[in-house]
Every structure is written in structure tokens, then in C-alpha cells.
């Protein structure tokens, strides 16, 4: 396990925590927690192999959250002094007092063991913040040049985003955690322009964002050479592909696309705060309401979904959440039936669920922790088929690869997705790409049409850095795994016809 960055450990978190928690106790808070974070970010982007952006960011600060006479109070600041920690504790109590008249639910938290002073670091080999910028830019320029050298590629856009997230947490019960996570995303996109026809198309890498270090870009976990070599041909095929005929099709969906459908239609729909209405005015609620727990038929009996904050290299993976809860893995859908939600300590207590399953997360030192998504993944079928076997079982259908556009409604019923590539399947074989394709369905119909999940050999962990929720808005990174999966009779739209052409 790599060590926690000594520069973070040198920050005065312990004296500040002690001062803030003691002041909150003196002022009558029945619970208080202190969180000091440092989030480092590094963004590089290249346009046609020339550097467009070099941005190195660091966000340091701390927050005090209290429960005072049954009401939340929260305050945060950036000056790391004991006086400021005391002031922020006082402001958190002041916020609780001004909010008390509009609070009618007494805040209580689910019990959690006290862990003492513990440390956790994510699994990575090379910290991207220790790699010289010049090396990163040279590698992105090389990747870009490979694309630009190919026939039919007019533009190449490249980006690399790296994060190092350090969290220190202490609460009045006595838990004290110090943690470090690394995550990284590299992306290349090729664009073809036919100026005479006024047409353009793009093709983007399917390499996922990962809870890994710089070794992901230079090593063999992802075959960058093969993907970059194939992209120009895929793009050329897409430029001249036939427009799809709208109608019902059988789909084999690759996990590079299905992860996002899982995120939107299962991940968000099984967040208990949404089901209870706490996101109702913004992100929305959920069709999977609490009264349907253990009865809702979410999908076919082949559908099994797990929530997990311990998945190796997962973006939502961590040792302890932002309420001092040790992270876990649990079933969300078993044999097609809804059996679990994602929770935090307040909701777990309110609904009598026992311990929280550890989904509290704040995206910055200045934001309040909320229930955020675990790595929610569809499980492969043990001894299940390969992708080629799934395609072989389709008479006329589409093989869907790579995520692209996405949209779903506020109760997570109606969704519509596009992809990087839609390959037509005829008599069990791929016969070229189709264009202007979107697949659209209602969540339970879609998962109900799942006929066969592929085997473990088809499993892939996708994910995103930019999952948005809450007001003020917070972003979270999360991974979703899936096997290649066969769905029968899904509604396909022609997007040109949708646009009135």
C-alpha cells in the first residue's frame, strides 16, 4: 500500500479537530464531526496535438457538521488555524439555530462501531502527481499524432484528468480516519469532417476512468495501441454507415455502454434519499419507492445487481465514508427483485435498516456529505457465454459499444441513450455500422427484457467522474461493472427522423 502524502499529513488536522469538536460539544451539540480535505487536480488537454489547457488545482479546507437539538448545522472555511476551527464550530451551531424553525424531523444517526485512529490508501502504483507534466503531454501528443496520421481523421482531441483526494475525518464518538485516493481518466477523440457535404462524426476511446495511477496509461491493463489503431477505421465506417430503420431490435450491449445505463436506471433509482424525496426538487425521486422493497420486479430473473464501495480500482471505493462508516458490499437486485438501497446514517436510522451501508460522501471540504452512489454493478452469469456467443444468438439486431449521450427522467422511468458504435447484426454476425441510432426504454421493461448476461470473461468496469447531485451541486466519481448482455425487442429511434429530417 502506498503511503499517504506527507504534505497532507503535515496539515494541522488533529489540533483543529480537537478544537472544533470540543467547542461544538460546549455549545450543546449532541453530535459533531470534523472533516479536513485536500483535493489535488490536474487537467491537461490537447487540440490537434497542441496543448490547449494545463491546469493544476488544489482545494484545501475543513468543515464542521453538528446535530444541535435535533437539527443539522454545517459550516466550512479554508484558513487552517485553531481560532478559525472554533469560529466554524460556532457558525455550524448558529446555522442549526437559524434553521430550527423550519426543521420538523429530529435528526438521529444509525449506530456505527468506533474505529479509533485508522488509515486507508487506494490501490495504485504510480502517483500521477509525481509524473512530470512534460511526460504526460508527450504521451498525449503521441496518441493524438497516431490518430491525426490516419486517413479521414481531421481533428484529434486528447485529455488527461488526475485527482489525488485526501480526507481526514474525526467525530465526537471517537472515530478518526485518514485516507488517500488516486483516480485518473485519459480520453482521445477523433473527428472526421466532410466540409463539402457539411457532415462530421466523432469516435472516442472506450478506456474508462479508473481508481488507478499513471500505470493505467502506460501499461497493459488497457490496450491503448490496439484501440488507437482501430479508431480511424471505425470512424470511417461511421461516416458512411447506413441510417437505421426505426423499430424494435434485439440488442447485445457491451459493458462499455451498459455501465451508463446501469448508472442512470439502477444506480440513481436505488438511492434511498431519492426514494424518500430528499432530492425531489432537483435530481428527482425514484419509481423504486421504499414500500416496494423486496417485492418490485426490477428485471428478469437473470438480473443481479450489487452495491459495493470496496470494488478493486472502483471510483467510489474507499475505506470509510464521510460519516465514519466502514465501507461494504451488499445486494441491490437479486434474481430480478429489488432487495436493497444505498444509505447514509440518518436514513438507515429513520428506516430501521440497522447500520448504514456507508454511502455518505462530500465532494469537497466546503460541501455537506450526502448519500452518494456506490459502485453499482450488474453481475455476470457464472459459466455465461462470450460476447461472440451472444451475438451469434441474434437473427437481426444491433451490437452497442461505448457510451455517448444519455438522458433519463426524474423518476428514472424513461431513458434514451446513444453510443460510439452501433454494429448491425444479421444472422448472428456483425455486418457493419449503423448511424443515427438511439435506444429508448422504460427502466423495468428494459431490464425485464434481459435474456442472457454474459460470463465473467466479458465483465468490464466502466464509470464516470462527473455524476451530479444535490444543491449546492456536488460531483462524484463512480464505477459500474457489467458483462456483455443480450436484450430482446428494444425500441430504436432514428435521430435524424426525430430531428424532423
Amino acid at each position, binding site marked *: 500500500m502506498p503511503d499517504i502524502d506527507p504534505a497532507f499529513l503535515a496539515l494541522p488536522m488533529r489540533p483543529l479537530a480537537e478544537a472544533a469538536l470540543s467547542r461544538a460539544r460546549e455549545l450543546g451539540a449532541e453530535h459533531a464531526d470534523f472533516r479536513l480535505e485536500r483535493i489535488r487536480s490536474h487537467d491537461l488537454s490537447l487540440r490537434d496535438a497542441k496543448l490547449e489547457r494545463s491546469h493544476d488545482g488544489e482545494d484545501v*479546507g475543513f468543515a464542521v457538521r453538528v446535530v444541535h437539538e435535533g437539527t443539522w448545522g454545517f459550516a466550512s472555511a479554508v484558513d487552517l488555524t485553531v481560532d478559525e476551527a472554533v469560529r466554524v464550530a460556532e457558525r455550524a451551531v448558529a446555522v442549526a439555530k437559524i434553521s430550527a424553525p423550519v426543521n420538523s424531523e429530529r435528526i438521529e444517526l444509525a449506530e456505527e462501531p468506533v474505529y479509533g485512529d485508522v488509515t486507508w490508501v487506494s490501490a495504485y502504483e504510480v502517483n500521477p502527481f509525481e509524473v512530470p507534466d512534460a511526460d504526460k503531454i508527450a504521451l498525449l501528443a503521441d496518441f493524438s499524432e497516431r490518430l491525426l496520421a490516419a486517413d479521414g481523421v481531421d481533428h484529434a482531441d486528447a485529455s488527461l484528468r488526475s485527482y489525488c483526494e485526501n480526507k481526514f475525518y474525526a467525530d465526537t464518538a471517537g472515530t478518526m480516519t485518514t485516507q488517500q485516493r488516486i483516480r485518473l481518466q485519459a480520453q482521445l477523440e477523433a473527428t472526421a*469532417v466532410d466540409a463539402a457535404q457539411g457532415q462530421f462524426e466523432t469516435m472516442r476511446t472506450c478506456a474508462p476512468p479508473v481508481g488507478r495511477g499513471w500505470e493505467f496509461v502506460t501499461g497493459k491493463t488497457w490496450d491503448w495501441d490496439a484501440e488507437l489503431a482501430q479508431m480511424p477505421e471505425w470512424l470511417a465506417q461511421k461516416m458512411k454507415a447506413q441510417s437505421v430503420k426505426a423499430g424494435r431490435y434485439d440488442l447485445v450491449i457491451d459493458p462499455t455502454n451498459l455501465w451508463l445505463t446501469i448508472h442512470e436506471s439502477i444506480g440513481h433509482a436505488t438511492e434511498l434519499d431519492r426514494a424518500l424525496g430528499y432530492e425531489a426538487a432537483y435530481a428527482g425521486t425514484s419509481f423504486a419507492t421504499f414500500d416496494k422493497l423486496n417485492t418490485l420486479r426490477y428485471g428478469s430473473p437473470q438480473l443481479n445487481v450489487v452495491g459495493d464501495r470496496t470494488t478493486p480500482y472502483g471510483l467510489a471505493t474507499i475505506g470509510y465514508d464521510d460519516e465514519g462508516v466502514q465501507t461494504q458490499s451488499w445486494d441491490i437486485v437479486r434474481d430480478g427483485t429489488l432487495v436493497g438501497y444505498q444509505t447514509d446514517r440518518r436514513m438507515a436510522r429513520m428506516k430501521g435498516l440497522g447500520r448504514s451501508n456507508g454511502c455518505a460522501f462530500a465532494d469537497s471540504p466546503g460541501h455537506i456529505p450526502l448519500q452518494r452512489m456506490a459502485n453499482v454493478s450488474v453481475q455476470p452469469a457464472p459459466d455465461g457465454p462470450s460476447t461472440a456467443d451472444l451475438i451469434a444468438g441474434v437473427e437481426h439486431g444491433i451490437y452497442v459499444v461505448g457510451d455517448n449521450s444519455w438522458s433519463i427522467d426524474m423518476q428514472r422511468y424513461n431513458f434514451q441513450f446513444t453510443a460510439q458504435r452501433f454494429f448491425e447484426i444479421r444472422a448472428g454476425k456483425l455486418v457493419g455500422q449503423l448511424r443515427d441510432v438511439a435506444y429508448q426504454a422504460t427502466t423495468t421493461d428494459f431490464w425485464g427484457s434481459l435474456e442472457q448476461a454474459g460470463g465473467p470473461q466479458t465483465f468490464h468496469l466502466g464509470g464516470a467522474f462527473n455524476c451530479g447531485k444535490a444543491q449546492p451541486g456536488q460531483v462524484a466519481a463512480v464505477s459500474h461493472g457489467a458483462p456483455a448482455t443480450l436484450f430482446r425487442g428494444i425500441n430504436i429511434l432514428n435521430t435524424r427522423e426525430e430531428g424532423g429530417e
Partner: protein
Amino acid sequence: MTGSIPPQETVERALALSKADGCVVIATERTEANLRWANNTLTTNGEMRSRQLAVISMVNGATGTAAAVLERSAVDPDDLETLVRAAEQAARDAGPADDAMPLVEPGTDHPGAAAWGEPAAETSIEIFDRFAGQLGEAFGRAGAADRLLFGFAEHVVESTYLGSSTGLRLRHDQPTGRLELNAKSPDFARSVWSGQGSHDFSDVDVLAADADLATRLRWEERRTDLAPGRYETILPPTAVADLMTYIYWSAIGRDADEGRTVFSKKGGGSRLGERLTEVPITLRSDPSAAGLAAAPFVHTTWAHPAFSLFDNGQPTQPVEWISGGVLNNLLKSRAWATQTDARPTMFVDNLLMESPDGAGSLEDLVARTERGLLLTCLWYIRTVDPQTMLLTGLTRDGVYLVENGEVTTAVNNFRFNESPVGMLSRIAEVGAPERTLPRELSDYFNRTSMPALRVSDFNMSTVSKGV
């Protein structure tokens, strides 16, 4: 900590330490307060204070000028030199920038120069003293009438200090506030929404907003299922704001010139000068628009085709993106403008739409509609096809059937597939502009003034069971 010295002093010290060929330093002081509620009770709240210091170094090389940004919260004065040197090293690693230009020079009466010496403006949780009392009363009224309230109130004040090695010393205070209020029936089967942008919350009346939502919630008591299809549709100002903001954010000159957007012309070049609609609408931005005032100069730490680091400090100007229905301007950095022999056009943090013959409120448009749909707002809007700017998204919190000038029934929600550019040619009627909050994009874009629009053949593609 920089807290011990004023932001102006931090900027001066960082500039004095710079050994680069050019340097821009931007210090931002931010305070915010918020309340969030659901089911007629508070859920979260907060008072936050933060600070950012960005050092942007420009380094000349044999083949051009490079730039890089280092941005930090809470910088100790003793660490300033380390930060400045790191920014210089990052610029040396970066290689020449495509958008390199000489840094902006101070001009006579340069916007933002006069207030340099003033301390940072601030907000606090006390801005909600009156509002929180009203909200408690609204919870009482709603509870008594079997109505649940959800929502969010936020007030943010950001003071930005920009200094450059060319002698710019500019400062801007930006207050940004909003209220979003959502009312539901206890079974969540009926749902309605309203939103409002505000500078200081003095103009926010949550009891009036609640009364309006109570009326709309009653409209929802009669409900009819309606099939997908192309409908004449009345878009309220909030929905127009979301769609027009998509147009604005995609109006990037370089991308259009390179053939990569809806504003690229068949045969090459951009569609500048092309008529997009026979309706004489104007879509414009103006940093001094009344009630929607935005920064009078460029300040950016995030390089992008529409925001060049080298343009920091450049005065922003009133600009018409669409004039009388004709595409008239695209966002152009000074560098791209120079390379394409055009006028630079800076991003302004507001957007206004109007038509010389636009008149009447949403209610007036309803009264003049024979048969059509009236929307509340749009949600989860995403680009499906950038070539046509085809967007998909949902109607949310109330769709109503209008017959013979009156709302006759609520109907189900739809997923739409529409291009806001294509839609401009199908505008049947334009209302009077009013300040509005774009529901989908208000986290990022708060200051808009839009009319309601009546549009023919709006593509309601599929039915959504969501409410």
C-alpha cells in the same frame, strides 16, 4: 494564510515574484449561504467561505508562447514563491499555445479598474432571516392544505481581483441568488415547480411562490393521457432559457470554422450571416443589463476554445448572437479573431432574448392558443446529434393541454427530441421578455431574460411515466 493579508496584496506579491514573460494573477473570495428542504422540513443548510488564488504564467519560447495555470485555495504568503515558480515550470512544460496573444493592456476607464481597493463583498446565513420565517409559514400553509414543499435557496457572493504584469488591476463583485420551489401532493402523483433568480433575496417572496404553485397543483387534479407526437407547444421563459443557453454555449467560432458544429456551413466556414428564422428575434448578452449585471471584463483560469487565458482582463461588450433572426456573432478569442480576420467576441455571463413584436405574458399566450401544450420546465437535456444540435430531455412538473385559450387538463410528461436551432424557424408567437431561471442549467448559468414562445410541431417523442 492569505486570510491574514488582503487579496489585493496577495495579487501584488505574486506578480512581484513572477519571472515569467507574462503573468496574470486572479484572487477570488467567495462566501455562500444556503437552505434546502423536502417534505415541508429542512434537510441541509450551510454557510461556506472559500478562497482561490490562480497564477497564470506565460513563457516565451523559440516557437511561441506557452501558458499554464496553478490554482490553490488558502495559500500561505510564505508559499507564494513556490506557487509562482511551479506555474512557470508548468508553462515551460506546456509548449506553445495556439491562442497566444500579447496580454491585455490597461485602457482608459478600463471596466473594473475603479473598485480595486475595496474589500471583498460578503454574504452570510443571516441573508435568510426574513426568508426562513416566510418559509416556515409556507410549510405551515402547505401542511394544512395537504401539500408538500421541496426546494433550495442559495446566495453566493464572489469578489474577483485580477492583476497582470501589463498593469491591469481589476475587480468585480458578483452576487448570485436563486430560489427553487417544488410542490407535490402527498402521494407524489402531482408535482409543480417555480424558480427565480435574485441578486440579494430582497425581491424573493416564497409565500407568493407557494400560492402560485397551489393553483398549479389544483390544475393537476384533472389528468388525461396524451400520446407522443408533434404538438404546438407553449414554452415558458425558463424552458426557453435552457434551450437558448445551449445555443449560446455551442456558438464557438473556432469549432464552427473547423466544420464541427451546427453553426458550420456546408462547403466550409461558418453560418454567420445566415437567417435562422423569419421571426425577428434577438439573442444577446450585455454585461450591464439591468438586474442581470455580469463581469465587465474576462476572468478565466480554465483554457477553452471560447475562453482564452490570454484574454484575461479584456473588457466584455454587449453582443448580439442572433440579430433579427440572423446568426450575427460567434464566441471568438482575440487569437482566433486575429487568425480569421474577425472581431474578438468575449463570453458574457448572461443571456437575453426578445422580439420587437413580442408582447404579453405566458397567460396571454395561453389565451391566444387554440390547441396546444403548455409546459412548466425542461429537464435532463443532453445533446444527441451535435450536427443538428438535436437535444433530448424531459418535460417536468406539469404539462397542460390548452384548448380554446384555457388550460383544460393536465397530461403526462414526455421525452422530447428537438433542435433549438431548428425550432427557431417554427416559432409561431413570442411573448414579452422577463427575468427567469433556467431550470436545468441554473447551477452554472443564472442570469437570463427570456420571453415565452409558442412553437409549432415540437417533437414529443415518447411518453414518460415520471411526474
